[in-house]
């Protein structure tokens, strides 16, 4: 009995270790989801925390037949779109992208920087589902992966993606 107990603890520790190791390696995926769905640092941390919990809760069922990162896209987006409850922390205090842009301002010439700032602003105006599609587009996912993540057909993913792109362009060039 004691042996089973210690083995179980050992197994849990191993599971925990491999999970944290992989999450550490792929954490940018989570950061990027947070960047799209929140607009200040507190909310960003909050969502990061919730996605981590959801990933960890789902991890025992992760079978490795898909890549860890692919699996993370699903759980991350699902948490942001559906599971996460926006608390008072999501009330806008300071726009994250403004902070990021201040740091990086020197790297860009003026027009490109301006254009990007407008682009990110436009993305933030999209609804939750549209943001998810833009996110997968920015991550260079193909339509099959997009359809797998969202649960819609490839054709519908393509149609919707084109619509979102058009919508973004309309926001930018009214």
């Amino acid at each position, binding site marked *: 009995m004691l042996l089973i107990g210690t083995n179980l603890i050992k197994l849990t520790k191993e599971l925990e270790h491999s999970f944290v190791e992989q999450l550490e390696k792929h954490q940018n995926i989570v950061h990027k989801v947070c960047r799209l769905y929140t607009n200040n640092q507190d909310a960003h941390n909050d969502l990061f925390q919730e996605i981590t919990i959801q990933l960890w809760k789902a991890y025992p069922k992760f079978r490795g037949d898909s890549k860890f990162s692919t699996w993370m896209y699903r759980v991350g987006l699902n948490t942001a779109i559906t599971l996460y409850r926006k608390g008072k922390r999501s009330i806008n205090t300071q726009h994250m992208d403004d902070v990021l842009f201040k740091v990086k301002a020197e790297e860009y010439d003026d027009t490109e920087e301006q254009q990007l700032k407008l682009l990110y602003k436009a993305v933030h105006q999209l609804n939750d589902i549209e943001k998810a599609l833009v996110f997968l587009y920015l991550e260079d996912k193909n339509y099959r992966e997009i359809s797998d993540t969202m*649960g819609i057909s490839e054709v519908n993913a393509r149609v919707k993606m084109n619509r979102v792109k058009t919508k973004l362009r309309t926001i930018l060039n009214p």
Partner: protein
Amino acid sequence: MDELELLKKDWQRDALAYPQLSAKEIYPMLLKKSSSIVKLLFYISIAELVFWVLLNSVPFLFDSYRESFDNMTMNKSMFYGITAFTYLIIFVFIYLLYKSYKSISAADTAKGLMESILRTRKVIKYYVLYNLIFGGIFMIISFYYSINGNPEVAKQLELVQAEGKETIFWLATIGMLILALLVFGLFIWLFYRLIYGILLKRLNQNYKELKKLEV
């Protein structure tokens, strides 16, 4: 260059700009409690089950209710049959609820996840609906029996009949019954609108957004 291509380039170049968390910082996060919508939904479901079970059982704790129950002319074995049936239904709902909660997985597709949450929500909705319908029927039946077999009511009725105001008496009684049912229904409806309206508003919107594509 296309604006979206520019965005994509920047997005991918941006990858290392996020403050990186170390394994040491990630470990404590695993111990934190989730505050997800599913968890809240789960607590609310439990509260609802308890609420309805209490609502059906609490009156029996009072002597006066038991007394009036004992005086009721309604068939006792029928009553016990109904009670057994009620508890059976509760267990069926608990089982269904458990099963649908189990099917909620964050690793599902976005649409799949939303559907399993909405399915869970439906189980509770049907439970409440069942309670309302059954409660309503039970209310009418017991109302009928309490009027029919009650000597106090019979005496009143005789008085009214003597005065020739029988129709008014019945109209007033039925009116009161309908009013009570309406107020009861309105209260429950408001309660659920409030809880689920707020809780599931975003989910419903997003689900609709996904469904729109399938037309």
